[in-house]
């Protein structure tokens, strides 16, 4: 029972990161109909920018985290403006072109970082204690608690933003029907820009938290992208609430699989789950909840 509790806690920690990874991806898809294959590279970029700000320039961890994520959000805006040029093509062509463009972009970003920063792995030094603390039967660290708290707080804030703010309502309207939203005066291009910036900002925070717990390296975005897609499919494409539940579900399933079967089966189990979801409930397990 102690082992199970610990594995569930481990799953919650990694699941919290999955929420941040997948939350951004799913809103970008939901609002803009872009399958962003460069999403993982924004996660990696955030981690590297934070590494420079925190480890090299000795900025406070939280200041570095915020600054790096804002920078990644701004890069997201530039990328969105470029992708916007495909907007005047047909709907199908737009999807194909943006997929191709983001695949290419992901390769360019990852390889550029590999050349500039080198292939070695580094850890972001958060300065937050990593000594083990007993909480009942399970062992936690201050940083792991911070990861969970941050992911859930950010998700809650973003959920409230979507539900009650003017921009949030406009985003939801654009998601439901782009043409109708435009006809009532919503500036769809501005909404697209804000959505891409928020999505990039969220995934960047995920990258920084992972880079402080484990390591950063130029190709860390590849795995992150796969996990984010897995969560988005589990939770339902375009559903932020689904991404939250899907992230936690995937994290816990992976952790229990690794603990009770073998670490090698961890990824396999997640992808078997995705295949099952696509076969039996292609709209995602939690899509109803978000609507």
């Amino acid at each position, binding site marked *: 029972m102690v082992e199970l509790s610990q594995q569930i806690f481990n799953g919650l920690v990694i699941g919290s990161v999955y929420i941040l990874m997948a939350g951004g991806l799913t809103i970008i898809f939901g609002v803009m109909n872009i399958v962003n294959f460069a999403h993982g590279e924004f996660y990696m970029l955030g981690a590297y920018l934070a590494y420079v700000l925190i480890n090299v320039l000795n900025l406070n961890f939280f200041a570095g985290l915020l600054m790096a994520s804002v920078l990644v959000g701004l890069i997201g805006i530039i990328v969105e403006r470029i992708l916007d040029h495909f907007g005047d093509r047909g709907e199908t062509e737009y999807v194909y072109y943006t997929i191709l463009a983001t695949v290419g972009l992901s390769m360019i970003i990852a390889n550029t970082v590999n050349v500039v920063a080198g292939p070695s792995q580094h850890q972001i030094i958060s300065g937050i204690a990593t000594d083990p603390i007993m909480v009942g039967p399970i062992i936690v660290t201050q940083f792991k608690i911070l990861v969970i708290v941050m992911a859930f707080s950010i998700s809650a804030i973003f959920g409230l933003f979507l539900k009650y703010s003017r921009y949030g309502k406009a985003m939801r309207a654009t998601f439901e029907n782009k043409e109708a939203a435009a006809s009532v005066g919503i500036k769809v291009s501005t909404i697209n820009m804000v959505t891409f910036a928020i999505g990039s900002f969220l995934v960047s925070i995920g990258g920084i938290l992972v880079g402080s717990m484990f390591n950063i390296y130029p190709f860390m975005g590849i795995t992150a992208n796969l996990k984010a897609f897995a969560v988005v499919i589990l939770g339902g494409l375009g559903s932020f609430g689904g991404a939250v539940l899907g992230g936690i579900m995937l994290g816990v399933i992976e952790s229990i699989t690794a*603990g009770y079967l073998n670490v090698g089966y961890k990824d396999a189990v997640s992808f078997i789950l995705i295949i099952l979801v696509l076969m039996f409930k292609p709209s995602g397990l939690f899509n109803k909840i978000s609507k």
Partner: protein
Amino acid sequence: MKKKSIAYLLLVCFMFVTLYGCGPSNGTADASDKILIGVIEPLSGPESYDGLRMLEAVKMITEQVNADGGLLGKQIELKIEDGAAKTAESASAAEKLVTKDKVQALIGAYASTATAGLLPIVAKYEIPLVNGVSQDEKLALQGNKWYFSFTLMNSTIAKMAIPELVKSLNIKKAATVVINSDAEIEYSDVYAKGLSALGVEVSQNSFPEGTQDFSSILTKIKEEAPDTLFINMGSNEGVNFLKQLYQSGYKGKLVASDLYQQWADEATKEIDGMYFAARYVLTQDTPVNKKFAEDFKARTGKYPDDSVAGDYDSMLVLFDAIKRAGTMEPQALREAILKTDMDITRGHIKFDANGRGGFDCKISQFKNGNIAIIKTIPFTGV
């Protein structure tokens, strides 16, 4: 139209020259006025931290020998390729070094899986490959007469160290944790077998290469509550694993084969008290090791570890054999390597008739930022 055709022709020529590096400025040195040694290291990818350091050691000793007049009256030129610690990349690098650069001997390629890619090449072209790093015994057992392997194999080191470790650390229940690759799984198997034979209860654990989050495997190990954990993994994974092991609250003893300098630099607190059944110990008090450690520190600002010492030793063995052979003729060089009888950084080395060598195993402990030898176990053969 004609101008366009000429431009295309020039472009093709330019690409050919760039890709294959056969322009005048890139021309290969004449084998008659230089000794050409091929070096394959992981210069990119997760193992590049070690690869770049190993390359520095190889360059360092080559520059020293060249400054002293070279060998056989010739300067030594290194031809360096990146094998990325992978089989296919290392094999391609070796093929290029032998066929295009015309190297006369090879050093490399760090990971056993990478070195495995070199073996068919050296057998085909009949040139010596000297390797003091790769630990997979299966490579040495292939019967390749051009492969000279002289690190302590996992099975040898287990045979030498386990009885002493079980006795001195009072091990009753142990667990192994390794990367899921041939050499590391072999390590886990031979250690589990050796420990079980002495009545120790053992569980074996492995994780895929590239794993970042070890929390699940650490929770499982903690539940099993071993008194000693045997680990075998690369320097990068090791730092990450050791930090997470510390965060998991593990209080038992830790044993590994060798101390990577990256562990000492980046996980100093986490490895305090850790034991090593070591091939190389930085503080080993021999003239060869002292000179090597000091020179390497002066050159790179960091101390060497087993991988770095392994490639430096490979160069020592190769250069000594070239001197004794008096020629770069492959068969003569092969025979000279087999007759090696010399001090290297990790002890004293001799080869058996199959090109396999070894040296003493050093049981040592890392404490308060320093490593010290507790007991030396003599090498009695593979």
